[in-house]
C-alpha cells in the first residue's frame, strides 16, 4: 500500500463517516414519520425517499448537478453565499449522504414499526410529552435498527461512484474516492493499484455489512421490555 492508496482510503472513510452523521437526523425523522405518521402524501414521501436507492446513481448525480451546479437554481444561491460545492470534497459528502439516506430511513423505520406501541402509550399516560417518549422509549428501543441502518448507509456511502463522478469529479487528493480511483486505475491498466483498493473496500464493507446484519436481527431482550430505567418516571404533580 502506497501513500496514495492510504490517502484515498482515509479520505473515503472520513467523508463516508461524516456523511453517515449527516444522514442520521433526517433519516431518523423520516423513518419515524413513515412508521408512525398518518398524513396525506405519505406514499409520495415514501417513494421519493426511496428513489436514490433505485435510480441510476448517475441520474441522481445529474439531478444534483442540475440543482446545485452554477447554472442551477440553488447553484446561484450557493455562489452568492461564497460556497464552492461542485468539484470539491463537499460534493463528495453530498453525493454520499443522498445515496445512503434511503437505507437509514428504511432500516430505522422497520425498527420503529417493531416497537410495541404500548410502552410509548404507557410513558405518555405517565406524563411524558411526545419528545420525551421519543427520546426515552422509541429511539432507545429502535436503536439497533437505527445503528444497522447507519452502517448500511455508511457502506453505501463508501462505495458511491455514479453521483460522485458527476458532481465531484476525480481530482487527486481532493475528491478522489476509493470507487472513483479504482475506476481510474482500471482505465489506465493499473490493475495492481486497483486490487489494493479492491481489497481495502472489501474489508471495510464486509465488516460493516456483517455488523449491520447482526444488529438488524431483532434482539430478544430489547423486544421483550425496555429496562425500567428507560421508562420515564412519572413526575409528582
Amino acid at each position: 500500500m502506497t501513500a496514495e492508496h492510504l490517502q484515498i482510503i482515509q479520505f473515503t472513510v472520513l467523508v463516508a463517516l461524516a456523511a453517515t452523521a449527516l444522514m442520521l437526523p433526517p433519516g431518523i425523522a423520516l423513518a419515524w414519520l413513515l412508521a408512525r405518521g398518518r398524513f396525506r402524501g405519505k406514499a409520495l414521501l415514501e417513494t421519493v425517499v426511496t428513489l436514490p436507492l433505485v435510480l441510476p446513481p448517475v441520474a441522481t448525480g445529474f439531478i444534483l448537478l442540475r440543482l446545485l451546479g452554477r447554472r442551477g437554481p440553488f447553484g446561484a444561491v450557493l455562489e452568492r453565499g461564497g460556497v464552492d460545492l461542485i468539484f470539491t470534497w463537499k460534493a463528495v459528502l453530498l453525493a454520499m449522504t443522498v445515496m445512503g439516506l434511503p437505507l437509514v430511513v428504511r432500516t430505522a423505520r422497520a425498527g420503529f414499526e417493531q416497537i410495541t406501541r404500548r410502552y410509548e402509550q404507557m410513558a405518555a399516560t405517565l406524563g411524558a410529552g411526545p419528545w420525551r417518549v421519543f427520546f426515552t422509549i422509541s429511539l432507545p428501543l429502535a436503536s439497533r435498527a437505527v445503528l444497522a441502518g447507519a452502517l448500511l448507509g455508511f457502506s453505501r456511502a463508501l462505495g458511491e461512484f455514479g453521483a460522485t463522478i458527476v458532481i465531484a469529479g476525480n481530482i487527486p487528493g481532493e475528491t478522489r474516492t476509493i470507487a472513483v480511483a479504482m475506476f481510474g486505475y482500471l482505465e489506465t491498466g493499473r490493475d495492481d493499484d486497483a486490487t489494493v483498493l479492491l481489497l481495502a473496500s472489501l474489508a471495510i464493507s464486509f465488516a460493516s455489512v456483517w455488523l449491520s446484519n447482526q444488529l438488524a436481527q431483532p434482539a430478544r431482550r430489547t423486544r421483550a421490555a425496555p429496562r425500567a430505567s428507560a421508562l420515564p418516571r412519572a413526575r409528582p404533580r
Partner: protein
Amino acid sequence: MGVEGAPVLVSAAVSLSAALEELGSQYTRAAGVPVRFNFAASNILARQIVEGAAVDAFISADEAQMGLVADAGLLEAGTRVVLLTNRLAVVTRGDWPRPLRQLADLGGQDVRRIAVGDPAAVPAGVYARQALERAGLWSIVEPRLVPTVSVRAALAAADEGNADAAIVYRTDVAAARHARLAFVLAPREAPPIVYPAAVMTRAPNAPAARAWLQWLRGPTARATFERHGFGVPARTP
C-alpha cells in the same frame, strides 16, 4: 436500400462522435452495411479491446492508445493508418468575464478550475498536459485541473459553468451549448494530434471493416471530416 450486410462495430474516440455518426449513416446508405459505434475515451476503448472486446475497427485519438492494442498483437497487419489530425482549443464557461487569448492566461489567479480529460490516460488530457508542460505552465495549472473521464466530459463541465475553462479539441466546440471558444492552440504549442485507425485481428467482420476504413479515407468522408473541423493528412501511397 440494398441488401444489408453484417454490421461493422467500430470503437472510436468520443471526439469523433458527431462526424462518424453522420458518416456511418452515409456509408450504410451507400454500401448497404450498417455501422455501429462504441464511443468513449480512447484509453477506455483500448482497454476494452485488450481485454477481449470483439470489435472490427478501432479509431484512437492518440498513438499511445493504439500502441497498447498493437503491443497486445491485436492489429491486423498493414491496416494501421493515420486517419485524421486535430488541434487543441480552450473554451470558457458561458459567463466567464474576461477573454483568454493564450495558454499563459490559464495561469491567471481568477481561473480556479480547468477541466481536462484525465492527463494520465485520456488522450485529450495527455495532449493538454504536454502543451502546458511546453509552455512551462504545468506546475501552476495542475492544482486547478479537474480530470474527467473523456474530453466531452471536460467540455460539459465548462458548459454547465462548473469549470471556468476546459481544454478540448477544436472540433468539440461545435458540441458546446453554453461554453465559448477562447482560442485554438497553434500547432507548435502542442504535440501533433493524430487519430490512428486500424482493423482488429479478432474482428468478427474484418472485410467489411477494411472496406469501411478505406471509405473513410476517400473524398466523401474527407469532406465531412473537414466540415467538422478535422484535418485530413495527405494520403501516403
